[in-house]
């Protein structure tokens, strides 16, 4: 479990050196010690992992790989992955500075994930669910045809088997390298959700940091319940794009989970430590 939690198990404790230089932008650091990007306190990695990859001091939620998140979300030893072998065929032969084919190869090097989403069925506190988790480590969790297909299959299976669906989003949006094909995944996942919705199926959408672009503008915002992790960045347009367009500074806390809650687009902010129990409770309330 700890193996899964650590993004870079076994890496040398170089972070001790870095601690002396104040760095605010450290996000997923490695080593024994690390500095929390929010409270800038130095924290012991093991403490952070024990706290489900949050800062024990200020509750900053560190990003998690899909694998680690699944391990934290479902009951131990009860996750059965689906469609794990799907890979993209590079539909538009996208080549810019680096070819998409090469990017895919690099991202899946060493037998890591084959695309930016893991889906499957498992149990959360004994309740069976279909779970899909996006993986920010793989091309910024972007949605191309594979992610779209896996989500759609997960939705269809939840619909057919009358199981609650949980999708944990953590994504930069639709995948640029598949262009219009990626865009169409927004339509595809949303139309599958339309059928789930009409059959009365429960869909809990969990928004982790970050959830942006085409992911937000499709399945992520269509949950019967929408939970967000504290301080998660959630939005459609990127903050830089907005700032460039309107040429003013963006307000403090803009596009953060708390902002969305205040504006009425998120049902609850759920700390990682409560996610399992909150999902379980919601399932209980929604099962007829």
């Amino acid at each position, binding site marked *: 479990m700890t193996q899964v939690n650590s993004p870079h198990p076994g890496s040398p404790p170089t972070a001790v050196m870095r601690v002396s230089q104040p760095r605010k932008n450290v996000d997923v650091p490695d080593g024994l010690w690390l500095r929390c990007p929010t409270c800038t306190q130095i924290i012991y990695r093991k403490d952070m992992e024990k706290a489900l990859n949050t800062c024990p001091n200020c509750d900053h939620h560190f990003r998690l790989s899909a694998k680690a998140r699944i391990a934290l979300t479902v009951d131990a030893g009860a996750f059965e992955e689906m469609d794990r072998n799907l*890979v993209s065929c590079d539909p538009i032969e996208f080549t810019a*500075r680096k070819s998409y084919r090469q990017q895919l190869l690099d991202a899946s090097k060493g037998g890591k994930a084959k695309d930016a989403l893991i889906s499957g069925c498992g149990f959360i506190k004994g309740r069976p669910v279909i779970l899909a988790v996006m993986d920010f480590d793989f091309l910024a969790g972007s949605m191309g045809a594979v992610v779209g297909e896996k989500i759609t299959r997960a939705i269809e299976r939840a619909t057919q088997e009358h199981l609650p669906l949980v999708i944990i989003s953590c994504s930069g949006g639709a995948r640029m390298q598949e262009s219009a094909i990626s865009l169409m995944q927004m339509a595809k996942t949303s139309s599958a959700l339309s059928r789930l919705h009409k059959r009365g199926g429960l869909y809990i959408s969990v928004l982790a940091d970050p959830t942006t672009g085409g992911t937000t503008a499709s399945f992520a*915002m269509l949950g019967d319940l929408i939970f967000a992790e504290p301080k998660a960045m959630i939005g459609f347009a990127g903050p830089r794009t907005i700032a460039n367009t309107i040429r003013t500074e963006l307000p403090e806390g803009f596009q953060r989970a708390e902002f969305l809650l205040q*504006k009425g687009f998120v049902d609850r902010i759920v700390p990682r430590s409560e996610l399992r129990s909150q999902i379980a409770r919601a399932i209980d309330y929604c099962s007829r």
Partner: protein
Amino acid sequence: MAKKKSLKHQDKSEPEIQAAVSHQPPPPSSGSLAQSSAVTVAVPGATTATAAPEPPRNPPVGMALEFEKPILKLERQIYDLVVMQEQRGVDYTPEIQQLRENLTALIRKTYQNLSPWEVVQVARHPARPQTRDYIDMIVKDFVELHGDRRFGDDRAVITGTGRIGGHKVMLIGHHKGRDTKEKIGCQFGCANPEGYRKALLKMQFAAKFGLPVVTLIDTAGAYPGIGSEERGVAEAIAVNLREMSSLPTPVVCIVIGEGGSGGALGIGVGDRTAMLQFAWYSVISPEGCSGILWKDSQNAPDAAAALKLTSEALKKLGVIDEIIKEPLGGAHRNPRAAADSLERFIDRTLRELRAIPLDTLLEQRYQRIRCLGTQTIAAG
């Protein structure tokens, strides 16, 4: 029956429709169109059988795209000759005829070999007809309906009822604006959440009363602003995608200019998707893509090529069902002819879709959307 009704309703939209058939220059209702009408008459042998070209009344001025400059130069020459002919009473007919033939050949040659970036330029051409132009040209009895009954009336999206061909429809389209004032009013076609919610409200109204929905897509993307995010533009688009996928009435979507990302798709889910020949449709604008990959927008031409955003590429990928041919030299050279093609497509497609029982239609729509992209993945 629809025809009979059209004869009775002698409102102001009627003469415009007749004009469309007889290929008169469009009414000078908009600066952009009036300007391009001067260009139109100088283009004989456009895709539709055009009437004999009249001498141009205005010199061919206006913004020229870089690759269009030789064309405009030739047009200017023709215009000068025509003016000289009138002033001096000398007959230059053979010369003019020859130049016009050259012009047609030049336009044909230029437009046959447009690069993806040049296609993007054509799609953004200031004189390219927009939703309101098409409404003026092909929609009879158009009655605009405003507002989303939640927050406001977004001018970037036009919604209303009217007749196209033999069909009563709900028309929904992005509108970029034709003069500066209008452009600012509708934020250059970049809609706020209200625009998408207004579109949905009108679509649901249409479904309730059995009106098919026709959407004209022409946006660089949804508006990136604070208010837009505050009022949940992502949610508005997401809900539209979900609801349009099962809207119980035929839905036809046509990209008439720019198809920029989620902002385009937000009114773009339906039974058929078509693109005008020189429109573009992509997950991100070439500038945006260039900004991400090269950290500035200088490489937009390369990005445009990499994104495969032309109608031809997207037809091959199976993302769109049909390409609607534009007149020679693009819709901005002959808005009437472009409108005619569009009208014919809508009329034919709605005829087809309305013959399908609703249950079958919705199942086919689902399957059509469901299959998008599946051929591009494999078990690795």
